[in-house]
């Protein structure tokens, strides 16, 4: 009896795998139906006892749901598939007819198959909800063995191997495999996750695991969910399981994997000879599977093939962003020691119930469920959750689907078009708003009459969109060319639209070197070309999705004061806006903002508030990048206006704007040659172009995007300089031209822009190209700002100074009469004030008198009121060196005189702050600190 019970699962696995194989090989689904029917009849003959019918139905249910899942997972369009599911549907109904005594009194006999399908949670849903159980990044090798050794084969954990420095799947093996478990490394590229050795890659970890629950690919067999998870019917059940976290594995909840007739994804637990042989057989069959053209179709030029269905991503993005926050510490391990995913350092307040619904979910649902669920912690939002199995597709997608179908209808003569159309028609009627799922369900039910229409019902049940996800095993199919790309194209437009809506000031961004994307193409491309382009953009946009989704989610969370993170961000923003006087300088203000962003980033990457954890959606090397972008969006975006106003205030108050303005005027009057420029310079038109770029820059809030624009400006300058000569110009030529261009642009605001970037840019980028040109732009502005002062201080243009140096050289080498300051106990000190120029005095300074004492003496002699602002500098070789208090000026003088090549030097007593480059030092030190704290 028990043996027989266990057998069903195997059949279902085998059928599902058969199914996969058939699909992947692009075979007719009908074949499968035939096989299926044969299997069914053999089964029915085997198990004719009436009490089996319940499980028989479950079996059908399982197969049907697997097909549904496969449809989500696989890129396919084979229309015969629909026929297949139709057959299956009718089979299900037939089965219902046969099984007259229904155990499950709730489901009505004729509709039960349908209902159970529509309410069933997909593997992906289950994985998303229960990640605190199986996603255990902090688990070490021994702990993993400890947990898995008591589990049946096929059970898995995802963790991070400290040895490989990679995420791995630890898979429990059947005993005949020799070892208890095997590890499979997960490869993370910039945008995707894949198993090592496999050509199939996924947008995130959940999709990867979901796929390997259905298809083994490079694994010895498919992954299996623990019984309790596999059997869970509602999201509330899954939530309860998730609450247990790692404790799930040792809890009674996980204790009945050998339960008779597991309804879902059964386990080859007993390792009986028969079963393992069967397993091998399955694998044997499976190993010959080939890749379909559709997989190849989506491939990149090198690297892993991509196997991501953009529609699938879209539909499921709701699940991800709509999933609930669990505020309980759910990740205590077996011993009760803290796990990495333990609560944040300062845990979120208990009242948080961050309901992060995706904007695609209707607001009304969100609000309603919120008010209902605030008080019910355990089953919070269950209403909402129950709606999720039939997610409401975003209206845009529907429209698109309709149009593509209409288009397709016109062009092709597909057999089942009419029924498709009728469904979409009714859906379209129920759009544009967010129709309650029941509505569309009802619409579908109406069409449930004939066999050909029952497949429509299938479509209508759940994930209809994924059924329409047309990309296909037959790449030459018209349908593919049209509709899949259409989706991608729309997706792309959508995402840019979102960008536009969300951050209108950022909308013009494009990588500096790439030509701007033309969105509204007025010219008509040949259809084929167009669809190819769209296909590319479709694949591209599907890659971008997890990142955008994550950023959006973080941004939404930052608005939500019920999360700890939201409190942190909102409180900081309002604090900054309300306390204008809390910062002494612009640098001080920007540095605290930067520090805050870095701290919040660290908090986010370590806290458990992000659910699902960011590691599961974003490849590791991209996490920081994504978090940084999110910080810009949720902190800099709301603060941009305030920061700009404050910067303006600071610079007006300290007179630096006035200084810059005056000097800009002076520099603008100089010819390029006078500024040391001896290469072609941008003409009027180029300068206008550059000005436009700078003005665009002002609209951005993201320092990175601002830097991108700066790079575009620099690129343009290079192009002009090189003037097709092919010559490469280094900094010797570039910096003078940049200075000239900055002056020509005559934009005071550039000063604050540069400051904003310098201080707020992710410190890790400061050493790169962006950092370099930012430094150069800062340098150029500093030179301009101090142009007048430079002149006043006789820091003349290089030519003039060269002449001067030559002159000095002659003078000093032929020095015959020592001046008084050469005598041992005297020191000639110049006193330099910006307004009054230079005056000199010879002071009595004994050899062992320190700089500190000399300063005191100078303050007295030059009648300085604020001696703390002044210091003694050594001016030598055209550079300023501030002498520290404990040095001995006479010793320095002696050392200088004793050099083989006499040098010109002066001791100058002057203001510390008037040296612009001293200020640079200070700023940059601040950045260094940031850098250290993050690395």
């Amino acid at each position: 009896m028990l043996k027989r019970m266990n057998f069903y699962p195997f059949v279902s696995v085998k059928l599902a795998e058969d199914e996969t194989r058939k699909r992947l090989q692009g075979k007719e689904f009908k074949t499968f139906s035939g096989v299926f029917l044969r299997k069914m009849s053999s089964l029915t003959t085997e198990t004719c006892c009436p009490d089996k019918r319940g499980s028989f139905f479950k079996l059908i249910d399982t197969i049907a749901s697997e097909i549904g899942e496969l449809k989500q997972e696989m890129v396919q369009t084979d229309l015969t598939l629909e026929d297949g599911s139709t057959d299956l549907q009718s089979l299900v109904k037939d089965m219902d007819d046969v099984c007259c005594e229904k155990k499950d009194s709730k489901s009505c006999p004729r509709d039960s198959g349908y209902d159970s399908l529509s309410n069933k949670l997909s593997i992906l849903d289950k994985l998303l909800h229960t990640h605190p159980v199986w996603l255990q990044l902090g688990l070490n090798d021994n702990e993993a063995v400890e947990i898995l050794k008591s589990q049946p084969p096929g059970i898995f954990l995802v963790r991070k191997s400290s040895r490989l420095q990679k995420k791995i799947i630890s898979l429990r093996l059947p005993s005949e495999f020799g070892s208890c478990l095997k590890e499979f490394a997960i490869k993370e590229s910039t945008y995707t996750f894949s198993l090592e050795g496999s050509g199939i890659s996924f947008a995130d970890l959940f999709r990867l695991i979901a796929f390997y629950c259905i298809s083994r690919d490079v694994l010895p067999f498919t992954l299996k969910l623990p019984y309790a998870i596999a059997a869970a019917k509602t999201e509330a059940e899954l939530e309860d399981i998730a609450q247990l976290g790692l404790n799930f594995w040792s809890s009674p909840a996980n204790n009945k994997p050998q339960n008779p007739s597991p309804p879902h994804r059964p386990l080859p637990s007993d390792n009986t000879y028969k079963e393992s042989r069967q397993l091998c057989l399955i694998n044997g069959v499976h190993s010959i599977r080939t890749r379909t053209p559709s997989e190849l179709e989506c491939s990149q030029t090198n690297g892993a093939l991509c196997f991501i269905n953009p529609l699938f991503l879209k539909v499921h993005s709701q699940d991800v962003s709509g999933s609930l926050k669990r505020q309980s510490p759910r990740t205590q391990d077996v011993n009760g020691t803290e796990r990495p995913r333990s609560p944040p350092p300062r845990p979120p307040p208990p009242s948080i119930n961050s309901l992060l619904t995706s904007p695609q979910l209707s607001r009304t649902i969100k609000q309603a469920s919120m008010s209902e669920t605030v008080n019910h912690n355990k089953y919070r939002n269950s209403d909402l959750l129950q709606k999720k199995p039939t997610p409401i597709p975003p209206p845009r997608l529907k429209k698109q689907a309709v149009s593509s179908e209409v288009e397709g209808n016109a062009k092709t003569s597909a057999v089942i078009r009419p029924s498709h159309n009728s469904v979409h028609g009714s859906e379209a009627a129920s759009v544009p708003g967010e129709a309650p799922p029941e509505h569309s369900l009802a619409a579908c039910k109406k069409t449930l009459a004939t066999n050909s229409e029952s497949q429509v019902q299938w479509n209508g049940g759940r994930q209809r969109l994924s059924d329409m996800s047309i990309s296909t095993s037959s790449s030459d199919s018209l349908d593919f060319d049209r509709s899949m790309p259409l989706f991608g194209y729309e997706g792309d437009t959508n995402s840019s639209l979102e960008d536009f809506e969300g951050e209108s000031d950022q909308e013009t961004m494009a990588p500096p070197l790439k030509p701007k994307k033309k969105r509204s193409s007025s010219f008509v491309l040949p259809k084929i070309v167009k669809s190819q382009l769209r296909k590319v953009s479709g694949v591209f946009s599907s890659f971008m999705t997890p990142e955008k989704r994550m950023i959006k989610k973080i941004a939404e969370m930052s608005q939500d004061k019920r999360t700890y993170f939201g409190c942190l961000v909102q409180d900081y923003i309002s604090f900054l806006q309300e306390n204008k006087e809390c910062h002494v300088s612009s640098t001080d203000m920007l540095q605290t903002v930067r520090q805050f962003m870095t701290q919040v980033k660290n908090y986010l990457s370590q806290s458990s508030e992000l659910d699902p954890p960011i590691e599961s959606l974003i490849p590791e090397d991209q996490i920081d990048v994504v978090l940084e972008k999110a910080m810009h969006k949720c902190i800099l975006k709301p603060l941009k206006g305030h920061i700009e106003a404050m910067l303006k205030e600071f610079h007006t108050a300290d007179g630096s704007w006035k200084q810059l303005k005056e000097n800009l005027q002076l520099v603008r009057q100089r010819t390029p040659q006078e500024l040391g420029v001896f290469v072609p310079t941008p003409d009027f038109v180029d300068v206008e172009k550059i000005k436009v770029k700078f003005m665009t820059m002002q609209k951005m809030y993201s320092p990175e995007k601002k830097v991108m624009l700066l790079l575009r400006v620099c690129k343009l300058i290079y192009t002009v300089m090189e003037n097709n000569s092919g010559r490469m110009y280094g900094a010797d030529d570039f910096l003078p031209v940049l200075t000239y261009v900055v002056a020509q642009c005559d934009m005071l605001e550039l000063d604050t822009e540069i400051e904003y970037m310098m201080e707020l840019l992710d410190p890790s980028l400061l050493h790169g190209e962006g950092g370099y040109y930012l430094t150069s732009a800062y340098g150029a502005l500093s030179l301009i700002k101090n142009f007048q002062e430079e002149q006043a201080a006789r820091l003349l243009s290089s030519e003039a100074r060269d002449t001067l140096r030559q002159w000095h050289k002659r003078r000093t080498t032929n020095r015959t009469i020592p001046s008084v300051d050469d005598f041992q106990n005297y020191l000639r000190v110049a006193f330099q004030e910006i307004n009054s120029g230079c005056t000199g005095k010879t002071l009595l300074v004994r050899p062992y008198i320190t700089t500190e004492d000399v300063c005191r003496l100078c303050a007295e002699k030059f009648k300085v009121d604020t001696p703390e602002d002044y210091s003694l500098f050594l001016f030598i070789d055209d550079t300023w060196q501030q002498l520290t208090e404990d040095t001995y000026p006479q010793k320095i003088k002696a050392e200088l005189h004793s050099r083989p090549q006499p040098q010109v030097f002066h001791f100058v007593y002057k203001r510390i702050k008037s040296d612009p480059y001293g200020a640079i030092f200070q700023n940059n030190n601040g950045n260094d600190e940031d850098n250290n704290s993050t690395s």
Partner: protein
Amino acid sequence: MMAIRELKVCLLGDTGVGKSSIVCRFVQDHFDHNISPTIGASFMTKTVPCGNELHKFLIWDTAGQERFHSLAPMYYRGSAAAVIVYDITKQDSFHTLKKWVKELKEHGPENIVMAIAGNKCDLSDIREVPMKDAKEYAETIGAIVVETSAKNAVNIEELFQGISRQIPPLDSHENGNNGAIKLGKQTTQMNRRCC
């Protein structure tokens, strides 16, 4: 997979000694088309293998004219290495080099690797700076020294290989002092979290 270390390298030296020519030669010989080129020659990158690491040189060129001298600290700040270039046919440029060395010793990053490049060695018949002088000077300051010719691609690779060898291998003490940023700092964060 080898770890990539980003190393900021600063180029110093008089204008006209061939700073950017050296870098262009270094970066553009055996040009790797997989790496996106930089927008101009003032900032260039090149990745070379060194032991079990990959060194990605982020090369910062500076303007050699004296009026830009005061900006130099912004450029050499955080550098792991400095290449100081002089022209073997110009005694003055060697003098400037000494000035840079001095400034770096006083204000530059701690443990900065210094490499002296006597460029234009193809013009040795009008040489003003004897090789011996440069060698002796380099010895006193513990710097790498080579005579290079950007024009004829002499000793360019060797110059940077020498720098690579002097960069202490990344071990337990990873701090920002030598200007090296380890890529994938998220990984280290993760580790911190896991342990």
